[in-house]
């Protein structure tokens, strides 16, 4: 599973992307966030306040309960500020 980070989520995690292989009990976006938070102090800081983070699965905005599959591209980022 490919995970991408943007903006301050990327800065806190310390990388722009990584390949991860979470255990089978990680079934949805919220589960992945909780699992990622335990991977390093940077991850922990990035995911400390999950409510400030938005997610996309396969380049579509996704809610915390969206189910995940092994080949998915999952992205985490703050609320967008374009335009």
């Amino acid at each position, binding site marked *: 599973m490919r995970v991408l980070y943007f*903006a301050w989520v990327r800065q806190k995690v310390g990388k722009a992307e990584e390949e991860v292989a979470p255990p089978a009990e990680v079934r949805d976006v919220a589960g992945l966030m909780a699992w990622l938070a335990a991977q390093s102090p940077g991850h922990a800081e990035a995911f400390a306040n999950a409510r400030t983070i938005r997610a*996309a699965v396969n*380049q579509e*905005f996704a809610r915390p309960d969206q189910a995940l599959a092994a080949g998915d591209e999952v992205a985490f980022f703050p609320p*967008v500020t374009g*335009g």
Partner: protein
Amino acid sequence: MTPSIRIQEAPFDLAEETAALTAGREDVGGLASFVGLCRADDGLAALVLEHYPGMTERAIARIAAEACARWPLTGCTVIHRIGRLPPGAPIVLVLTASSHRAAALESCAFLIDWLKTRAPFWKREEFADGRERWVEAKESDDAAAARWDAA
């Protein structure tokens, strides 16, 4: 008509983009545009914009297609810049053309309201004194985008 959508570091040329939507045509009655620029609030030295390559283009293409479905447009161009932009620099261009004035004006407002709240761009402010700050999303922008859901 296929909307023209570009994410780029380079500046854009409003006159050139306008000409592209009108050249050789006699059915365009109105052309509406919005250009968003970088303001120098509070000692800002530069804005740095990043985006989610791939998702950005897909998301903008989808909303532009929705604009074309809601309004009878003869042309639609969206250009969003990324990278480091100094105060005064243009950041985003939305340009819509239609036989009808209201269609051009409304679809232009619709697209820029959407870009502000749903397109995967993030802005970091760099200040003259070395501070950095990620721009936070504004509730007023969400409200502006939401009014189109009800319309």
